[in-house]
């Protein structure tokens, strides 16, 4: 494929054939080797062909092949002439990351680490097919779908301040449960307040290095060694079913003939199907916000019980990395409402944007980029430059390079646990096969991903954190 180098970290697929706009890839030469190996670039090109696309079809440094849209893809559409696509959001709607700070130093938790992890494992259900302890009625579930993390806080899970430190305030306002199928509700009822499996995890981490002291301070991070807690999960079966339902419904309504990939199925944003999906997706987003809100609350409770307090356990932020949202962006010098799809990409708004909470408005939105199991994760700050470069978006993690099948063949979960232990990281899981699938060797180098992000200006490096305790679903 024709890929033009713009600079060391920027590449372009010029608009050709049915492409309405060019595609732009933010990647180093090294990461590009992985990106070129699968269907990522073809998928980015396909996205560039969709009606009403604005700017460019963007590919983030951690991108890999997805369904329809690449994972690590960002695309914005005109709300009148453009489309919305479930494949541009992904199956795990509002898969995201929440980061809590603490006043504890590593030394404070070292002795209690095993107990902390054991208690968290008991409080937070995780693993394949693991149901939650919270028994919901349909009426309550519907309330959660409308009110998201607000519902959780009102019901005693966490604090009001958590909400303003969550993307969208923890609640997508346009959500509706009218078009959530019975199947989605049935899948959602037993799974609220659960972590799930796959690449989802909960980590006790410590700050290893601070790159930007002023931004770190604004985010509540003072020194290396400070303990943090990271929660990575999404909307569970409810979100997966919403995606499945609307891929079917849009295919039935608009047909799939002519689509290079059936997963690119879409609907005009203003159409009945487009609006129904947008509101149902919002409901799944809210479910995921409530989910992470509850899990964060249980983590605080465990810290309080084991360490005799939950000192300084404020929420730094909570980001979605699979979502479509209506946002204002500059297009051709004029502010315009756009339907921005971020699939495996994190919003990265700079200082001054009204969406950034007041406490962070001077430094930019906290951007949380989780690494793979047992590797570093990063905290970045959103930039003004990103708004022009990628509609205010950056990477979402490390991105896979090896199949689960291959990882299973090469690695043993128990061996990974022992190796991590030698590096001072305690790993707990009930599913060693799942651990093997998530071996860090199966992922791209997250250090390189954030380096590119910082160099390009998609997100500014603030701090590097490393795990000391990992709970794997």
């Amino acid at each position: 494929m024709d890929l033009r180098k713009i600079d060391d970290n920027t590449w372009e697929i010029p608009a050709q054939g049915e492409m309405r706009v060019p595609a732009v890839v933010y990647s180093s030469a090294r990461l590009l080797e992985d990106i070129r190996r699968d269907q990522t670039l073809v998928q980015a090109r396909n996205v560039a062909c969709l009606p009403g696309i604005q700017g460019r079809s963007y590919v983030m440094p951690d991108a890999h092949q997805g369904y329809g849209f690449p994972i690590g893809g960002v695309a914005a559409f005109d709300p009148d002439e453009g489309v919305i696509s479930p494949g541009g959001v992904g199956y795990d709607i509002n898969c995201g990351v929440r980061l809590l700070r603490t006043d504890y130093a590593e030394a404070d938790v070292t002795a209690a680490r095993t107990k902390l992890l054991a208690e968290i494992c008991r409080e937070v259900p995780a693993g394949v097919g693991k149901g939650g302890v919270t028994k919901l009625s349909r009426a309550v579930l519907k309330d959660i779908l409308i009110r998201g993390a607000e519902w959780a806080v009102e019901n005693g899970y966490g604090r009001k301040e958590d909400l303003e430190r969550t993307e969208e305030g923890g609640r997508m306002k346009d959500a509706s449960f009218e078009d959530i199928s019975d199947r989605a509700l049935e899948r959602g009822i037993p799974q609220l307040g659960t972590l799930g499996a796959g690449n989802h995890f909960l980590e006790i981490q410590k700050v290893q290095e601070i790159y930007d002291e002023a931004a770190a301070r604004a985010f509540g991070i003072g020194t290396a060694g400070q303990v943090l807690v990271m929660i990575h999960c999404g909307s569970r079966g409810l979100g997966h079913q919403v995606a499945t339902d609307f891929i079917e419904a849009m295919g039935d309504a608009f047909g799939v003939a002519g689509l290079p990939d059936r997963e690119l199925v879409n609907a005009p944003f203003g159409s009945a199907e487009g609006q129904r999906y947008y509101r149902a997706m919002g409901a799944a987003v809210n479910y995921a916000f409530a989910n992470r809100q509850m899990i964060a609350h249980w983590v605080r409770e465990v810290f309080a019980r084991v360490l005799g307090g939950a000192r300084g356990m404020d929420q730094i932020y909570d980001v979605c990395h699979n979502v479509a949202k209506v946002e204002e962006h500059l297009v051709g010098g004029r502010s315009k409402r756009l339907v921005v799809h971020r699939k495996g990409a994190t919003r990265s708004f700079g200082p001054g944007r009204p969406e950034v909470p007041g406490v962070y408005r001077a430094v930019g939105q906290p951007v949380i980029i989780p690494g793979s199991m047992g590797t570093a994760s990063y905290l970045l700050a959103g930039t003004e430059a990103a708004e022009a470069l990628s509609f205010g978006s950056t990477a979402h993690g490390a991105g896979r390079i090896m199949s689960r099948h291959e990882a299973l063949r090469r690695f043993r979960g128990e061996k990974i646990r022992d190796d991590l232990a030698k590096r001072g990281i305690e790993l707990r899981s009930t599913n060693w096969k799942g651990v093997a699938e998530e071996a860090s060797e199966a992922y791209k180098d997250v250090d390189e991903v954030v380096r590119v992000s910082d160099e390009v200006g998609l997100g500014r490096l603030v701090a590097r954190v490393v795990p000391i305790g990992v709970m794997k679903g």
Partner: protein
Amino acid sequence: MAAEGETPMDRERYRILPHTADGKFQAFGRTLEEAFGNAALATASLMWDWSAVELKVRHFVHVTGLDREQLLVKFLGEVIYLFETRQFLLGRVDGLRVRPQFEGFSLEAVLGGETVAPRHELYGDVKAITYHELKIEECDGFTVQVVVDM
């Protein structure tokens, strides 16, 4: 040693293929029905060992699709749905029938298996069945190829 999904006595039911982020497989059958049934077992194999599941419960499933691809996606979706909402582990597919209908196709099958118990090892989380690289091919019997989101 027999390959995954193969027993020495019968022909290969399915083969798990490498895919960067997710689960991909091909399932085989002398008929479309047999290939669909084996695809259901292949889907189960990404989450549990279906051959170790006892046959204690039966679920009758009926799905319709505008084309064979949609029919397959919806049928395999039943495996995930029954697992997540009924804790049902698929161990066997019986009486699978595909019929053309006024618009598209309908499928009926009896899914046999049991409810999750502590002795079962669950190791993979299949979130959804996708259309990505989905193929249904007829050549010396039927081959279906499916990628699932994990």
